[in-house]
């Protein structure tokens, strides 16, 4: 009995010794995987039909819990925003009566301050009852109302503020130049949450307390598959591929749309302007970025460090000198 116990303890020590090199390898810094061409999304809102397949596919593949049902009361969008467990989010922007009938725009501006004298029900022959047809449109019953649908996602910025803010090194750029949160390292400090200018990354307060966001399906990329949302998208509104190629496609698509008279179409994040390096997940929008709650030209938070520090140092020096003056002052 005693002998056996002794043998057991010896074997457990031997096991520990055997594990030692394995434990030491944890300290060893692994060589990163070789660089791959940058991958990203091109989300073309002009093709989006608002089916939300991307939202569901993302939740399914990444095993994210369903959001607590909440009735927004504003549109078909009850998800409302991206979050720790919502990495794709379809916006429904309802633009009803957005155009002033041609010719009456001026008078409407002038009379807007006075009380309206129009009754709710007007005779059908009234000129204002039916909007005048904008020039160049063939349809007789042209309707200016529109629904803009937009599948929002992490922008995978080339200079990602969340990555720059992260104090643990949990947030990295992967070999595909996507922005990825290493869950084993993140300790939920919350600095990335306020650093992100798009309000994307969030801390999972109800869950593990760590920061979560779109991974661009890193696990699928490793196996040579498309991200789940791009795979599920039935209209190719979400396109996945190499960023360089996607940007070329986006320019072509923009040219085609403008050729067909959609003059309001524009690309968001496809050039290098936003955050001084552009976005690897960029968009084709049909209105100003603000309509989609996207910041037109956000500042890069890490650029604030130097000027703010300078002001801090000047103030500290001034106060220190004043204190030195008063302490050394012999009356």
């Amino acid at each position, binding site marked *: 009995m005693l002998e056996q116990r002794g043998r057991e303890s010896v074997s457990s020590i031997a096991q520990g010794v055997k594990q030692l090199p394995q434990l030491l390898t944890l300290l060893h810094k692994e060589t990163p995987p070789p660089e791959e061409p940058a991958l990203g999304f091109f989300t073309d809102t002009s093709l989006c039909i608002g089916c939300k397949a991307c939202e569901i596919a993302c939740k399914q593949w990444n095993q994210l819990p369903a959001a607590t049902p909440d009735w927004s009361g504003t549109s078909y969008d009850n998800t409302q925003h991206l979050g720790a467990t919502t990495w794709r989010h379809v916006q429904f922007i309802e633009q009803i*009566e957005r155009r002033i009938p041609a010719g009456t725009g001026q008078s409407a501006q002038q009379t807007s301050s006075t009380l309206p004298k129009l009754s709710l029900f007007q005779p059908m022959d009234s000129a204002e009852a039916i909007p005048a047809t904008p020039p160049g449109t063939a349809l007789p019953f042209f309707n200016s109302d529109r629904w803009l649908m937009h599948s929002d996602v992490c922008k995978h910025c080339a200079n990602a503020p969340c990555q720059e803010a992260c104090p643990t090194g949990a947030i990295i750029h992967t070999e595909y130049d996507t922005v990825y949160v290493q869950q084993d390292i993140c300790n939920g400090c919350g600095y990335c949450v306020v650093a992100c200018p798009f309000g994307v990354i969030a801390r999972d307060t109800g869950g593990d307390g760590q920061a979560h966001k779109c991974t661009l399906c890193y696990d699928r990329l490793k196996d040579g598959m498309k991200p789940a949302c791009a795979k599920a998208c039935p209209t190719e509104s979400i396109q996945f591929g190499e960023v360089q190629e996607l940007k070329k496609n986006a320019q072509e698509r923009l040219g085609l749309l403008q050729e067909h008279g959609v003059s309001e179409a524009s690309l968001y994040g496809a050039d290098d302007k936003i955050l001084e390096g552009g976005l690897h997940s960029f968009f084709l929008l049909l209105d100003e970025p603000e309509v989609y*709650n996207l910041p037109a030209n956000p*500042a890069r938070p890490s650029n604030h460090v130097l000027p703010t520090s300078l002001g801090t140092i000047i103030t500290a020096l001034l*106060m220190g000198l004043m204190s030195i003056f008063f302490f050394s002052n012999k009356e």
Partner: protein
Amino acid sequence: MDNTRVSETSSSTLPVNKERENKWPTSSQLPQPTLLETLAVWTTGYRPDPVRELQEKSYYDYPALKAPVWSWEIIWYFFMGGLAGGCYVLATIASLFGAKEDRIVARVGYYASLLALLPCPPLLIKDLGQPKKFLNMMRVFKVKSPMSMGVWGLLTFSMFSALTAVIQAARDGLLGKWWGAKLLARLPQRALAVPGSIFAIFLSGYTGVLLAATSIAVWSRSRMLGALFVSSAFSTSTALISCILRIVGAPVKTLHKLERIEWVNMLIELVNLLAFLRITGRAARALVGTGPREKGPTFWSMMFGSGLVLPWLLQTWLLFKKQPVSPRKKKRGGLGLIVSLLVLLGGYFLRKTVVEAGHVSSADARTSLWNARR
């Protein structure tokens, strides 16, 4: 085609819309501005215009940014960290440049610095989403991230602060008379305190830089938050030291020096605060406005009024009131105690209102989007 397009909210041609529009308050219909509202308009240089702001586009007013996850732990950390750094700097200046009777400032300052520092690491760790993983903060050294630099700065300063306080304790005979205490007392405290002070200044100011290096409009727009926080750190720690000295009793001359330092510090803080509000402009509404969620009432009463302007005026009055100074006399209590307590309260409420204004600011989609339209 484009020029005929107007925003959703301003489409005023249809009767239904017109009726709705007239329910909105126009600038002329607004109630008479209150005192706080007038102050807010003066200091920020921005007159709120609800009619125009409603015409700005956003997505159903859903927040364009995520709300900060920081609350009371961080507020207390900012306050205590500022005190720890400021007390250390003031103690060092007193020991290097002060007269013989000013040594009590150094002694009290070094102890106060360590005591204020002690709750900081637990507060920071408690604030994490995964407190048990706090050691991951020490994986990297990242100059670009103020939080990473803050971790290393706090760690370094803790060592300096602890060592300086232990030397002080050994010299004051608090550690007994064994050989270890004698050895400690002989260590060069002043030579340690100079590099220590650099880290002390860092600790009292970096918290403002940390908030400024975010996307939250009220924190980041002015790039002035670091200067504001460091000036508040200095004035609150001068107040803390003079508060303690007035309780335990100290030479009148030393107290008089501290009073004048406090007066200058408050003045610099006031200038920084006004510059911060003016440059932040519209984004400062979250801090100074009197709207439903805005922090104006607390800010103006607890921070600006009773925490800065009132103690500064009291201090001015005390300094002008000539008192017969007998150099050997010790003094306790007095009106100066109240001034110091008010300054400390103001310093706490500055951190509280600024952090909470960040929450309000992040929820205001229109101001966030306006801030990003450069």
